């Protein structure tokens, strides 16, 4: 990848996980994410307001000024490692950054937008909806929808200029169908619209796909997936891709919710097991429920126990893909570290309550 011309301000260099680098200029009063976009360079990002953590980067050299952001988006542990959010950070000098994704995740043009017509809305549990969209033709005129399983789309909140991000649960296809699992947030603008107004045939604008959460074809080591609540969506997409392509890695899913009624997608998980006979699924419910026959307690505790069992037996440790609340993601990373798994083998995406 060639380096962009640094024409004014401080020089910011991003070094990607695959060893490539891109550079852009950033004025002293400019946020790095804004400066990058001004120069047609779009690293993975989402909320743009320090809430989601999608634009996490690490300062290797140089001085920066961090603006306040959500502790869940930039936990203290990450900050201690030099972590910043590009959307909430200004340079005080030339800065070298390291990012946890490959160069291919950086776009050099704005995220594409497409029309999206609602095909169906299904209530999966009191707070969970399955929203199925049919995207209109892409920029190339084609009908297909192309993304990496694990990525998300931003959808407009009709009647406003707001957009909300939701992970895709389906797989790339050639007919433009997109399936999303959406947890309704009390007071959330998109949630309110989806619960009260949305109906099949209505049209939205979809922007994306975006995000650096995706499968990594590293080798034959196992892949373990950890999903909390609506974090099942990107994990479902990843597992469906593995089934479609016949990926050889042994796979295991840990799926946890607070309540039994929040456990969704029974049919989809059963179908996945029929396609991937070796897929092991462990479902946990944290709340006390005498009618629940599955594992009880924290999904992270269940994961940690399984990792320690592997370690005791000297079995290969897995790559871990986790999507859930910021706290859950942190806990999974801690459990992985305790089991001796290198940090770069835990791939994560945070989900949970967005801004209203």
């Amino acid at each position, binding site marked *: 990848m060639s380096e962009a011309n640094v024409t004014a301000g401080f020089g910011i260099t991003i070094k990607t996980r695959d*060893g490539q680098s891109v550079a852009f200029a950033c004025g002293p009063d400019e946020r790095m994410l804004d400066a990058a976009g001004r120069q047609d360079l779009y690293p993975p990002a989402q909320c743009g307001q320090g809430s989601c953590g999608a634009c996490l980067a690490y300062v290797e050299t140089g001085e920066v000024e961090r603006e306040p952001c959500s502790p869940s988006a930039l936990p203290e542990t990450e900050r201690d490692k030099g972590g910043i959010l590009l959307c909430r950070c200004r340079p005080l000098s030339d800065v070298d950054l390291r990012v946890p994704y490959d160069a291919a995740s950086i776009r050099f043009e704005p995220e594409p937008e497409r029309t999206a017509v609602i095909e169906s809305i299904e209530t999966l549990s009191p707070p969970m909806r399955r929203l199925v969209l049919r995207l209109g033709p892409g920029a190339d005129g084609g009908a297909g929808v192309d993304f990496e399983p694990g990525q998300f789309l931003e959808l407009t909140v009709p009647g406003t200029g707001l957009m909300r991000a939701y992970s895709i649960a389906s797989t790339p296809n050639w007919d433009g169908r997109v399936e999303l699992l959406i947890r309704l947030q009390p007071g959330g603008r998109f949630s309110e619209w989806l619960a009260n107004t949305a109906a099949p045939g209505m049209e939205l604008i979809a922007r994306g796909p975006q995000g650096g959460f995706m499968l990594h074809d590293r080798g034959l*080591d196992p892949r373990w997936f950890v999903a909390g609540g609506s974090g099942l969506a990107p994990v479902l997409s990843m597992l469906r891709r593995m089934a479609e392509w016949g990926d050889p*890695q042994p796979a295991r899913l840990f799926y946890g919710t607070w309540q039994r009624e929040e456990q969704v997608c029974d049919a989809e998980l059963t179908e996945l097991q029929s396609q991937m006979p070796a897929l092991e699924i462990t479902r946990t419910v944290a709340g006390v429920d005498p009618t629940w026959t599955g594992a009880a307690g924290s999904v992270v505790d269940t994961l940690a126990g399984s990792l320690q069992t592997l370690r005791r037996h000297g079995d290969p440790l897995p790559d871990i893909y986790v999507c859930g609340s910021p706290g859950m993601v942190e806990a999974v990373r801690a459990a992985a570290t305790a089991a001796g798994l290198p940090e770069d083998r835990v791939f994560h995406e945070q989900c949970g309550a967005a801004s209203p």
Partner: protein
Amino acid sequence: MFCYQCEQTQHIDALAGCHSQKGTCGKDSVTSDLQDILIHAVKGLAQVSHRARALGVTDAAVDDFIHYALFTTLTNVNFNPVRIEQLVRQAVTLRDALAGKAAAGAPLATPPGPASYQPPATQALMLAEAAGFGVRAGMETVGEDVIGLRVLVLYGMKGVAAYYHHATVLGFRHPDIDAEIARILSDLAGDPTDIPGLLALALDAGTLNLKVMELLDAANTGTYGTPEPTVVRMTPRAGKAILVSGHDLGDLARILDLTAGAGILVYTHGELLPANAYPALKAHPHLAGNFGSAWQDQHADFAAFPGPVVLTSNCLIEPQRSYKGRIFTAGPVGWPGVRHIENGDFSPVVQAAQALPGFTQDAPEKTTTIGFARDSVMGVAGAVIDAVKSGAIRRFFLIGGCDGAAPGRNYYTEVAEAAPADTVMLTLGCGKFRINGTDHGDIGGIPRLLDLGQCNDAYSAIKIASALADAFQCGVNDLPLSMMVSWFEQKATAVLLSLLALGIKGIHLGPTLPAFLTPTLLAVLQEKFDLRANGDAAADVARALGQAA
């Protein structure tokens, strides 16, 4: 990682070769190290296969695996560490099964070296051992000349494997070839140090490659007919479209069959351009011609193509995001995150073609003429011989081999420009794209530019040269023929070894010489075969014409 098997290997410090986190081709260090381990495991499989064969025990699945696995390690073929790790483990499973099968008849002593390799349980542990299996392992003990010769043999065998794979997928194979592949790899597994012996082994690989290329020629022509001079459209027509790149005629034929009557036009790309000259392929009315140029232009070609792209063999380079979702790999090819067609069922490609927009209008027509394989050329042998005898044709320039991005490859364009009007140029391989955009005219009705086909069709060139030598009652080295070989990857190494095995001298090899040829080895090749490095194109042409020293 350390890799110096291709022409574009890095020369950025004292150690020529790619030895950072990523090679020039885009292969990362994990995949590169796993490929080193795979080569080690395949050598071990060959050791057992060679010994089992002596006991009368053979296994076609083992033979197929050996050439398939070697093919995945060619430059620009398979970048997927998952697939390479699978192949390592599969090699060991096949090896142990074959050893057991052979031992049932008579005791099979486990040979030392790679045949005893056992891969650890995890990839991390495998990679921790990788340095011991790299091509430079033992350098401090045996020296760079021995290492250089070993890799010359190994890389030549990779080329042999690729050509043989293309033949076997069309149902053409020969037990002598299977046996010789196992024998040479088994010899390599013994880490030979005798330089004359290694030189002989390299020429054995070249001789073997001649047999393989002959078989591949029989496979291609026996299956799809003899290529015939054909005018090929080089610009697209309106309609849904599929682009097929690589070398595999069988995959192209399957795609053509699958799309018959479906309203989808199929285009060739790069080294598949010569497919348009095969009667059984060009009989399909929806084989619409060729789109794009040589492999190194694929970023632009694939991005501009409004339909799916299928990579049937090398050369694949890192897919760009703009088209990654609509490319497919087949056979030995692979890239992480790119859909692979394993079983020859290209229906997902057809589905993609129907969903993607295709070309909305016809582009202005441009054409090129191809299909001058040996039968076409020898069909006019009388006229050619007369033209040579009369002086109308002063010399032939065989401009053969690979194209690439390096500026030094302009040499071949300059050779074509410097070649006077009384010379004929024979092209094969994707290097032709540097030349075939120009009308070079004809000599008494004989086109001055005769394209012989893919690099896989080097056999045609050898047969033509041999036939001309017979006609003139001289040796090939006495013909008015200059060979300007443009190498890039390991099939070109195999072809070079074949030419040397035939005793052909005075070959120009470029644009740069292989990094693994040490000064000592180069001196040997220059002394024995008058191997020449590229100089100034005009001067080299003048020298060939006898106008300058």
